[in-house]
């Protein structure tokens, strides 16, 4: 069962999305702000991270930069979730190191497609790594 880390400060969005993902067969661990998201990525080693961008204390862009600069977490795919409207926000998320980007309100089939695609790409690239 793939493990997802959902970093989301909005309580209702967090509850709703985590329950819907669990019903689709994912294990979901939750973080409510940037620092706890970074910490839980290290301690829980999720297969993929869903990162809200507007987070308290440490925003999603900076949290992603920290994850991608840490050897222990840089391989974990990150999907940016944002209700921001500007087309530049997508570029900003990708520049921070996010692997994908999706907008709120969430279209679950579209998000699931992106999750599956990144998980399968990650599994493929880890299988290609030489074992030494």
């Amino acid at each position, binding site marked *: 069962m793939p493990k997802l880390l959902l970093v989301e400060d909005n309580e209702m969005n967090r509850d709703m999305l985590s329950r819907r993902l669990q019903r689709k067969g994912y294990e979901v661990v939750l973080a409510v702000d940037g620092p706890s998201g970074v910490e839980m990525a290290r301690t829980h080693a999720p297969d993929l991270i869903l990162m809200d961008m507007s987070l308290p204390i440490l925003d999603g862009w900076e949290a992603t930069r920290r994850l991608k600069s840490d050897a222990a977490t840089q391989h974990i795919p990150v999907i940016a979730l944002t209700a921001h*409207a500007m087309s530049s926000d997508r570029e900003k998320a990708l520049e921070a190191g996010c692997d994908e980007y999706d907008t709120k309100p969430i279209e679950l089939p579209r998000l699931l497609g992106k999750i599956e695609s990144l998980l399968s790409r990650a599994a493929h690239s880890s299988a290609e790594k030489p074992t030494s």
Partner: protein
Amino acid sequence: MTEPQNPASEETRHAMPAKLLHDLRTELGPIIGYAELLMELAHEQGQECFLPDLQNIQTAAKNMAAFISANFRGIGLPETPAESATQQAAASGTS
């Protein structure tokens, strides 16, 4: 003659509507999501009598999201590629 646009003032002009759009979309997310979750549960538990009303909640919220996006585009706020794809899917009835 058209005056050259100042990028800083363009950003400032978009800042307030962008925040409002962000907040509106954030609040619409749970309405759509919980409606869809309840539709799944109602279907699984044989409570189909609830489906039409839940469908109405979902449709109204999605219409509101589309209405908000269309109006914000009307004031020059650019849409994201993901939003554009959603609008196209909604227009073709495939979402």
